């Protein structure tokens, strides 16, 4: 009955760590940072048309925003010399402005010098700090520590702490196109794009990558996570570079994109959370942040421009979905979602992951109680979203081999066209969302949460979402038989969708409906103080928290299942 998932550890595809791109990158860190800084300057100069007045304006905007940020929103990780650095930038700008005799070319040169200081500071800040012995240590801590916890919880009795009956892979099931991923990672450069629901995702993916025997991937992690020492350690070890969401100025964004693009061209496998931040609503991301995604396309084009036309220069996009019964941060995520009515606010740190202590407590809880996670790896695609075969060739819908390079060709040669590549980013984004939906694995908990919420919604058709969520929980009773019939209806539709390869289901979904419901009820949001869905002693299905129920229900959003009600 149980589906096969990967239980063994794979051998590393590159046994010697010296061959790991990320190690090579760390070795050449200094030169690499210089390169990123130089290339970013070039981009910014191009964007400002080499015009000193436009450049000046951008510099002043950046200065203004940065000074404001330093004053209003300082973080622990910020370096101490921030205000002195920006004060110096200010002085330099004032100095150039007051020199009225300078020619246009000279002014450009002066501004360029200021720009250079900014981009090299940003490059240095963004760059990852990968250290191999940290990586090794972290990896063994994660695997060893977690499996000790797991066995202690599941195998009862004396010496259980030394039992090896369960490994982490029983807890976290890895399924899907793992062989293809391993294969392609030896041939070209992989960009992994997972869904993002929890801060745990980064660690989970890092662990998955290591189980699959892949060399570490680099990825952009929110700088806010580096505020927390335990995370900072993990992140550095996993090859994370830093993304500071407070900085939205042109200089910073261009440097960040350049970093990502150059790292991909360097051959570093990368990881983007294309949704940007964690999904607040619990829905699968439908609008992706295209900024970093576009760097994969740019890197691919740049490789073709350089004449690297074989598979070694090819960039593969691999979508991954992570499925949970339980998202620790759910209460605050959904609160955020409901209170942000479309407006962007400052990212506010939430409670759950704010201290190392709380995280450790969660981890103990997580591993000692049964709540499974699955990581499903999707089919690899080229940067335009075409599937690729085992040799990395792109295929059209009829499985004919096509050249990805042709997408960048105009008048017989590879050309740079930023407007074209912007459209390509949109296309790729859409393809990734499509794949997310296809490889998403339905859990029993998703099914019960979705069904219950839709039933409540259809009983209160006149209410909008906000009124619905404010319904007094004690007034909501769903008779078990009706609930079961509705679950069956949704389940049948899911099976139809599965036949069309539009969705996937977890192995535990092949049991009888009563069992599925029982499994779902006992797992949905199981560690929350208020449970999203339970069966009360009279046998009715009731909820203790409507907004949490809504959150878990959203996981099945985007399949048209609500039309069944």
């Amino acid at each position: 009955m149980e589906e096969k998932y990967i239980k063994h550890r794979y051998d590393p595809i590159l046994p010697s760590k010296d061959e790991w791109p990320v190690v090579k990158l760390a070795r050449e860190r200094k030169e690499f940072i210089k390169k990123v800084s130089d290339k970013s300057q070039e981009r910014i100069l191009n964007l400002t048309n080499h015009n000193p007045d436009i450049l000046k304006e951008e510099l002043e905007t950046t200065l203004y925003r940065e000074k404001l940020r330093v004053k209003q929103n300082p973080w622990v990780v910020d370096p101490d010399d921030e205000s002195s650095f920006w004060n110096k930038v200010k002085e330099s700008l004032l100095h150039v402005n007051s020199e009225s005799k300078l020619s246009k070319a000279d002014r450009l040169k002066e501004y360029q010098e200021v720009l250079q200081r900014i981009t090299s500071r940003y490059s240095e800040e963004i760059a990852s700090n990968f250290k191999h012995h940290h990586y090794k240590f972290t990896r063994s801590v994660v695997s060893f520590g977690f499996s000790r916890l797991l066995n202690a919880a599941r195998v009862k009795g004396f010496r259980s702490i030394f039992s090896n009956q369960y490994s982490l892979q029983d807890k976290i099931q890895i399924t899907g196109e793992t062989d293809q991923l391993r294969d392609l990672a030896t041939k070209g450069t992989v960009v992994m794009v997972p869904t993002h629901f929890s801060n745990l995702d980064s660690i989970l993916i890092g662990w998955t990558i290591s189980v699959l025997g892949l060399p570490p991937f680099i990825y952009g992690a929110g700088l806010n996570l580096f505020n927390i020492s335990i995370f900072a350690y993990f992140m550095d070890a996993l090859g994370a570079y830093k993304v500071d969401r407070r900085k939205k100025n042109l200089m910073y964004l261009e440097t960040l994109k350049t970093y990502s693009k150059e790292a991909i061209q360097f051959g570093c496998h990368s990881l983007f959370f294309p949704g940007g931040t964690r999904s607040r609503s619990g829905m699968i991301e439908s609008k992706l942040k295209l900024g970093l995604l576009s760097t994969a396309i740019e890197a691919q084009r740049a490789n073709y421009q350089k004449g690297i036309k074989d598979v070694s220069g090819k960039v593969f996009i691999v979508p991954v979905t992570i499925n949970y019964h339980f998202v620790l941060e759910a209460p605050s995520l959904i609160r955020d979602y409901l209170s942000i009515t479309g407006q962007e606010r400052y990212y506010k740190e939430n409670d759950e992951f704010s201290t190392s202590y709380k995280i450790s407590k969660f981890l103990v809880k997580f591993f000692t109680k049964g709540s499974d996670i699955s990581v499903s790896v999707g089919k690899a695609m080229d940067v335009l979203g075409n599937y690729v075969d085992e040799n990395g060739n792109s295929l059209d819908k009829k499985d004919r081999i096509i050249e990805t390079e042709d997408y960048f060709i105009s008048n017989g040669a590879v050309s740079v066209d930023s407007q074209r590549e912007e459209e390509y980013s949109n296309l790729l984004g859409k393809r990734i969302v499509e794949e997310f939906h296809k490889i998403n694995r339905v859990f029993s908990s998703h099914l019960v949460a979705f069904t219950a919420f839709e039933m409540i919604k259809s009983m209160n058709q006149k209410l909008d979402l906000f009124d619905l969520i404010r319904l007094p929980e004690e007034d909501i009773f769903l008779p078990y038989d009706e609930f079961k019939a509705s679950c069956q209806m949704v389940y049948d539709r899911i099976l139809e969708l599965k036949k069309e390869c539009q969705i996937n289901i977890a192995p535990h979904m092949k049991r009888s409906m009563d069992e599925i419901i029982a499994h779902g009820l006992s797992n949905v949001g199981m560690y929350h103080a208020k449970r999203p869905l339970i069966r009360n002693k009279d046998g009715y299905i009731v909820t203790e928290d409507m907004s949490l129920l809504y959150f878990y229900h959203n996981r099945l959003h985007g399949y048209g299942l609500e039309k069944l009600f």
Partner: protein
Amino acid sequence: MGMDSKNSSNKKVGVVGVGSFGTAIANMLAEKSKVVVYARKPEVVEEINEKHETQGRKLHESIVATFDPEQICEQCEVLFFVVPSSGFQEVVRNFAPFLHPYHLIIHGTKGLCLDLPKGKDLSSITKIKRSQVLTMSEVIQKETVVVRVGCLAGPNLSKELIKGQPAATVVASKYNEVILEGQRLLRSDKFQVYGNSDIIGVELSGVLKNIIAIASGALAGLGLGENARGLLISRGMVEMVHLSNALGGGVRSVIGLAGIGDLVATCNSVDSRNFTVGYRLAKGETLTQIQAEMEEVAEGINTVRIIKAFLETSDLRAPITENLYRVLFEDLEIEDALQFLMKYPFNVDVDFV
């Protein structure tokens, strides 16, 4: 080879389809570039290559014809698809194995295509969703690996183009390079080419105006005058705006050359097939009779059916389309439809800007 000196570029341009509009486009392109045309029937190909004409329409002497999709795809990077919407999908499918991502396709077909489950068609389905309605550019993207796609739309009555009378067109594409290429290839002293990035809006404008053209023909057939036509064109435009919006097009494109420009031209033209259908309906003929006697399809009839089925899944009202549907397919008398429209409570003149 004497032709070469006149050509601004040595690259060949392909035109798929040699109907009236296809021939007109091929001739215009041939003024600047070498042109290869594709026709399905070998006898048509032979006629073009030997006599430089087809179905009484002259073709530029430098134009070469072929019935081999592979050949035209190999020779040309830029292809213009100008085939009727009813056969569009099939032609595109035949071309798909030979197309590569470096190709640019610009189409000039004003119609919609349905993407329904196997074995279903409009007679067995009454409701369709937006995802089941495909514009021609969506057909190309669905069936082939070509992504750099554009369309041509605007008041371009083939008869006038063939005579070399001044006109303009819109090249719409999400890709600037496609617009620029279209302009480079087509622009001349007599032909102005505008660009627009809202390809869906431009395609829909060209498609939806056909509905209004049928209605305009009907008014003419009833012997009504210019006041009535003015009324129809302005109300028709409002309906087009709302429909286009619901189908994912922008308002601006409808009030541009491809929308209002084409609408005015078609609603006044006895040369338009759609206009003719309306005209003859008003004279008392039935749809079956009219269709039996027409060589090329009036796209508007199919459009009315598709839009009617789409309206079933949306909250939108489109009184002109709905009543035209009843006239075409449910034996409503045209006079009754007109009465209905005159009583319809349109009370706001313009409600979309």
